[in-house]
C-alpha cells in the first residue's frame, strides 16, 4: 500500500508496506534552507542528509526543490519497492503461516477462496461396501471418512434386558495424515469415538430398545466403524455425517426365536431398515485470535487456530451436543452465532442425505 501525505507545504511522507521515507523541505526561521532526506527501512537505516543553504527566500524555488527531491525519492522507491514487495509475499506461507492467514482473514476470506461461513463441497456415497450391513463414504473437501456398520447378535446386559448395543469406533490410521502413527489409538481417535458415542446417546437417533429382539435373550449389536482415509481437518463433522448416512442404509434381517428349540432363526430374505428417529448433524468452528470464528476448518487452519467448537443439532433445532474442548474463551453471544449457523447447516445436510437415499432406494 502506498500512502502519500503532503502535510503543510513542504514535506512529503511516503509509505510502502513497512518501508517508509520522508522527504522534508524545512524552512528555517533564519536565513538557511535545509533539505533533509531520510530513507528508513526495517533492517537498516540510511540517512542521507542534504543540506543546502539558500539565501534566497523566493518561495517558487523552494517548491521546485521539494518536488524534485520527492521525484528522486519515488524513483528510488520504485526500484527497491519492487524487490521488497516480492520478498514480503514469498516468505509468508511457510515462514509465517499465521501472518499469511491473518491477511486473508482481514479481507473476510480464506486462502482457498471460501468465505468465513462457507463449507467445503460435501459429497456422500451410500452403500459402497457390500460386505457391510450399511456403509457410507463422505467427503468434506479433502477430508474423506468411511463408515461401515455390521450387525451381530448378542445377549443384552443384565441391568438393561430390553436394550441392544451401538458401538462406535473412530480410527485414524497412519495413512490419513503424517501426524498419526501406527499402533494403539491415540488421544484424538479415542476422544472422537467418545464424541460419536455421546452424539448417538444424546440425540437418541437410534433408541436401544428398538434393537432388542427378545427381552433378556437376544438383541442386536451395531458395530459402527468410522475410518478416516484422508485427514484435512473437520473430522467430527464428516464422521457424524458418515455415521448418519450409513445407519440410514442399514437393513437388518428379521430374527425370530423358535419357541420349541429356543434358537434364533434369521430370515435373510426379509430385511427391514433401521428406525432412525433423529438426524443429528455436526458443525465445527475454529476460533482465531480469540475473536474470529471460521466454519469447517482445514487441517492447516486447525493447527493455527486457538480453539475449536463443535455444535450438533437435530431437525427440531434442539442442541444434541455443544463440544468446546478448551481453547480461547467465548462469550454466550458468540456461541449463539455458532448455533444459528449450525441450524442452517443442518438443513443443507438433511436435503443432501434425503436426495441420496431417494436415489438408491429401489422403486
Amino acid at each position, binding site marked *: 500500500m502506498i500512502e502519500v501525505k503532503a502535510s503543510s507545504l513542504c514535506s512529503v511522507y511516503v509509505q510502502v508496506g513497512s518501508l517508509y521515507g520522508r522527504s522534508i523541505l524545512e524552512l528555517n526561521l533564519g536565513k538557511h534552507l535545509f533539505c533533509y532526506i531520510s530513507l528508513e527501512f526495517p533492517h537498516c537505516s540510511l540517512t542521507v542528509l542534504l543540506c543546502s543553504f539558500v539565501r534566497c527566500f523566493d518561495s517558487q524555488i523552494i517548491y521546485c526543490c521539494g518536488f524534485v527531491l520527492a521525484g528522486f525519492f519515488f524513483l528510488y522507491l520504485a526500484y527497491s519497492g519492487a524487490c521488497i514487495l516480492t520478498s514480503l509475499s514469498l516468505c509468508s506461507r511457510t515462514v509465517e503461516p499465521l501472518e499469511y492467514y491473518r491477511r486473508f482473514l482481514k479481507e473476510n476470506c480464506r486462502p482457498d477462496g471460501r468465505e468465513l461461513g462457507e463449507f467445503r463441497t460435501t459429497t456422500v456415497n451410500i452403500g459402497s461396501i457390500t460386505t457391510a450391513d450399511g456403509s457410507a463414504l463422505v467427503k468434506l473437501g479433502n477430508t474423506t471418512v468411511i463408515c461401515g456398520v455390521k450387525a451381530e447378535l448378542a445377549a443384552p446386559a443384565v441391568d438393561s434386558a430390553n436394550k441392544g448395543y451401538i458401538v462406535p469406533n473412530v480410527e485414524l490410521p497412519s495413512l490419513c495424515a503424517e501426524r498419526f502413527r501406527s499402533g494403539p489409538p491415540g488421544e484424538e481417535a479415542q476422544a472422537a469415538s467418545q464424541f460419536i458415542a455421546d452424539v448417538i446417546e*444424546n440425540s437418541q437417533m437410534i433408541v436401544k430398545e428398538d434393537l432388542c429382539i427378545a427381552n433378556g435373550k437376544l438383541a442386536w449389536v451395531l458395530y459402527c466403524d468410522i475410518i478416516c482415509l484422508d485427514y484435512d481437518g473437520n473430522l467430527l463433522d464428516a464422521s457424524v455425517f458418515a455415521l448418519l448416512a450409513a445407519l440410514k442404509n442399514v437393513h437388518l434381517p428379521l430374527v425370530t426365536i423358535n419357541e420349541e428349540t429356543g434358537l434364533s432363526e434369521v430370515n435373510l430374505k426379509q430385511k427391514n431398515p433401521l428406525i432412525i428417529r433423529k438426524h443429528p448433524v455436526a458443525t465445527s468452528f475454529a476460533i482465531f485470535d480469540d475473536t474470529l470464528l471460521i466454519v469447517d476448518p482445514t487441517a492447516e487452519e486447525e493447527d493455527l487456530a486457538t480453539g475449536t467448537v463443535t455444535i450438533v443439532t437435530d431437525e427440531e433445532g434442539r442442541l444434541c451436543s455443544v463440544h468446546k474442548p478448551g481453547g480461547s474463551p467465548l462469550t454466550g453471544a458468540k456461541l449463539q452465532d455458532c448455533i444459528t449457523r449450525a441450524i442452517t447447516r443442518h438443513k443443507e445436510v438433511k436435503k443432501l442425505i434425503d436426495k441420496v437415499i431417494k436415489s438408491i432406494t429401489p422403486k
Partner: protein
Amino acid sequence: MLQGYLGEYTAPLIHGLIHVAVRLCRDAWLQRRAQAAPEERGERGDTSVLAGLYGPAEAKVSKELPDRAALEVLLRPKVGLPGVLERSREQLLRQTCEAVVLGVLHPRTAISLVLQVLSDAGSLLSCCLNAACMALLDAGLPLAALFCGVTCALQPDGTILLDPTARQEQEARAILTFAIASSDRKVLMATTKGSCSVEEMQQCLAAAQRAADTIFQFYRDSVRRRYSKC
C-alpha cells in the same frame, strides 16, 4: 456455598509437588428455581478428586515443544483402567488448562497434571476442573486467568439445578458442564450430555456464570487461609 469447604491440604513435597483435595458438599442453597426435596438435604454425597501437578520439568525429546510447555493430563478413575471416557475428559481438561497456562514462558518443558478420582457422587467433571485449577494455582504456574467448573442439570420439568448429585443427574434430561474463566466470565469449555433447546442452554450458561462468582470467592478464601497459616 457451592462447595462447602476445602478438605485437607497436604504439605508441599520436595520439588514443588502440590496435592490439593477438593471436596464437594451438597447444599440445597444452590438449587435455583426448584423446590428442595426434604430427602435431598439429608443426603451428603462427596465427590472427591485428588490433583497432583508436577512441573515445569524436563520433557522427553519426543514430547517437547520448541516454543511452549507441553501439558499432559492423566485422569485415573476410582475403579478399573482408564478407558475412552477418561481419554476424552483428559483432552477437555488439557485444552482448558493450555488456554490459561502461559506455556510460552517455559519452552521445552513438561507439565503433568494427574487427577485421581476418590469418590464420585455427581458433577465429577466440574470437580476435576476445579481441582485442576487449584493445583495450577497452588503450584505457582503463570496463568492468564483462573477457571472454575460448573455442572447444570436440566430437570424434566424445565428447572435448572446446579451441582447435581448422581441421582439428580440420572433423572435430568440434560447435563451441561461449563468451565468459566475468571477474567470476563467467558466460556472456556463446554460439554453437554442429553439434548436441550437453545434457550435452555443460554439460561444454564447464565446461571453457571453467576455461580462462578461464588467459586472464585471460594478459591480466594482457600488460598488466603493456606497462606495465612504458614
